[in-house]
């Protein structure tokens, strides 16, 4: 079953990439959603999204304070511990200040591994920023060409765009099965499918997604009729125990606008015209992450998702010390409230503390069900 395959992959997310490098394939770890993975793919390498790890941080303590946040600290820990030693390089972009600092720290403490910096602006408005954004993307392309010793040909780029776009389409189809009434896909499977995509080749992922969609079409996911549909928002959700817990509380994920979810895959690359420019435009125009301005694209995406899924409430899963999301949260909460949509904030440090979360989600589900929200 595809579901079992996803679970097997996620049990050791880096195993496949180790295998690839044993086979002589080059893998590039990507630390953010503004890395044009299509370039890496077209250069004959494999982009792998690095999402940290839930283990203890000890080595990285010597370089990053606790308030740099678990994601940045655990990625540095992985690097220092040698867990990522099989990667040909890592690509860092200007996301949060902490993740940006990883580029400097990589150069200082893991100098044997190539670190790329895609030095894009945070402000995605205005002609000047657009020019600089485009140039940063082109510089990255040049660096990749130097790194591999090969020019990125248009034909290869088009092939990569097609593979990535297919991946995005399949994931969007999956999202619509999830928010169908009744849902045709369980929330747990949906999350596993998305997370697997970060550590598989896009081709492998597409195969598995096709199988999943085939087996899910026409079917109704069991026991979902009485579950309250909820929307989940936040930068990252990797804790696979969270959705089963939500289910136990009488609710389920019906839609999301996660940084590691639909915000990552929603926008496609235009397949007409110059492929390099089309890739640049895709990243410039994509649904913004919390560490980019303007925020309105993200807000509209969140609203659209809620409308699609008819979610009765929103759970914000926000990483502790993720300033960008913590500033957004009260604004989003109030905007939702003015539309009569209740929301709940949960703190995460890549994992959600289960006992506290259970109580809070349970209470929230009761409120949503009882309509006691005002």
């Amino acid at each position, binding site marked *: 079953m595809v579901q079992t395959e996803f679970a097997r992959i996620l049990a050791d997310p880096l195993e496949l990439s180790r295998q690839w490098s044993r086979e002589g394939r080059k893998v590039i770890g990507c630390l953010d959603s503004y890395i044009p993975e299509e370039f890496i793919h077209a250069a004959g390498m494999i982009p792998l999204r690095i999402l940290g790890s839930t283990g203890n941080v000890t080595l990285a303590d*010597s*370089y*990053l*304070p606790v*308030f*740099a946040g678990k994601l940045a600290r655990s990625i540095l820990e992985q690097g220092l511990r040698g867990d990522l030693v099989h990667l040909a390089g890592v690509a860092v972009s*200007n996301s*949060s*200040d*902490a993740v*940006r*600092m990883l580029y*400097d*720290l990589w*150069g*200082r403490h893991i100098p044997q591994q190539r670190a790329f910096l895609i*030095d894009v*602006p*945070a*402000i995605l*408005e*205005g*002609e*000047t*920023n657009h*020019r*600089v954004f485009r*140039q940063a993307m082109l510089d990255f392309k040049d660096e990749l060409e130097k790194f591999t010793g090969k020019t990125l040909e248009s034909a290869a780029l088009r092939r990569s765009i097609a593979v990535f776009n297919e991946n995005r389409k399949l994931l969007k189809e999956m999202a619509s099965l999830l928010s169908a009434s009744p849902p045709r896909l369980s929330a747990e499977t949906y999350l596993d499918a998305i997370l697997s995509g970060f550590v598989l080749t896009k081709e492998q992922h597409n195969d598995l997604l096709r199988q999943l969609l085939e087996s899910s079409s026409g079917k109704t996911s069991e026991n979902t009729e009485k579950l309250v549909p909820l929307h989940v928002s936040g930068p990252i959700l990797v804790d696979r125990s969270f959705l089963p817990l939500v289910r136990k509380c009488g609710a389920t994920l019906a839609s999301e606008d996660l940084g590691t979810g639909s915000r990552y895959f929603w926008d496609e690359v235009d397949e007409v015209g110059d492929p390099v420019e089309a890739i640049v435009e895709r990243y410039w125009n994509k649904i913004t992450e*919390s*560490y980019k*301005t303007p*925020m309105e694209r993200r807000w509209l995406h969140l609203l659209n998702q809620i409308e699609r899924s008819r979610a009765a409430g929103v759970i914000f899963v926000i990483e*502790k*010390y993720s*300033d*960008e999301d*913590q*500033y*957004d*949260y*009260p*604004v989003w*909460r109030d905007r939702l409230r003015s539309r009569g949509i209740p929301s709940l*904030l949960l703190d995460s440090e890549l994992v959600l503390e289960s006992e506290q979360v259970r109580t809070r989600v349970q209470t929230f589900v009761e409120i949503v069900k009882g309509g006691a929200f005002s």
Partner: protein
Amino acid sequence: MTSAAPKKKGRALNSSYEAAIVLKDYWEGAARHRVEGRPVAWVSGNVPIEIFWALGIYPVYPENYSAVCASIQRAQEFCETAEEKGYSIDLCSYSRVNLGIVLGKGVDDPTLPYGGIPRPDMLVTTRIPCLPQVKWWEVVREHFDIPMFVVDATMVELPVSESQRQHYLGQIRELIPFLEQKLAVRFHEDTFIETLRLSDRAAELWLDIMDLRAAVPSPVGSREMCGNVFPLVAMLGNPKTIDFFSHLRDEAQQCVQEGKGAVENERIRLGWDNIPMWYNLKFFSDVEDRNAIFTYETYLRYVWGGRMDLNDPWTAFANKHLDVWLNYSINQRIKTLLSDVVKFKLDGFVFHQNRSCKRFSMGQRDLSQVMQEKIGVPSLFIESDMADPRAYAEAPTRVKMETFLEMLEAKKH
């Protein structure tokens, strides 16, 4: 701390007493501007300040206002209000103070220092010091529903590259018509260049003072200089800043010529990294009882007010605004600090691990390690916050500092 020398009373430089007057004047000027219906912009650290003075737009600094609140022990109440509104205790405390005011009783609350913060017509900020600043301004915009402009920049390793300069100037060329159009003001290059001249003169004086503090004994310590820095942040281009800094510089120069130190019998020289604890500036002067002095701060030297070569004003303007400690890569910070620690003859360094200002605090461990390895200068880490006193643990911090000073003293023998 145990007293080993007679305590020095009052300010080392008499001119430092002018600081409070300049500050009051600035905030009263802002209020007047508002009342007279002239444009007011809320701005943040490292915005292109000279543009505002040149255009007659009053630049109001909520960050400074938060620091003022902290220094009169009023920050905590506003932080708590912001937290009640849903803003995490882990966010920058300057922003929590400000959001506590804005979303609480409002900026016109008469019980506020200086009678309140003048309402903004416009918001301008920049990512040069940090990204949270931009997010904070987004919240403020949500509240006031007014136009906003953000100046972006990527981190630098000196010298500033041509592409970084062009990125900056390109945005300035967008900012000026934006301000003209939204606030009905007119940009005149001559006035701007004249403002740059005033700004540069103030920066020159300030850097002179900083350099004079490399003298042994040091003429003035950190506590006093933190109280003097404000015009360098907010009033570059305003002639009053030049007057004030001239007085300070002349006095400091005289002290150095006469070999007069802020601390009698100066024995230990210290450096400081990060924003000070505004509610506890006494931390700096307490060490003076041990014949020690804080005589160098990255915050006072590299965060505000660099020099400009006005033969090429626009290039100089861009260089100056991008050449900011918070925007330095870690390697650049190391390079700069190593040479300064030697120049200022520092015996030890204190890193304020400031939970509010993450961008300042990240990379400090590398600085400390390199400083120890390359030049044998030890450092101490204290964990706290620049404006939220709840993050400061008095007793353990004092013990740490005592032990550190004892260690430095022992090293001298």
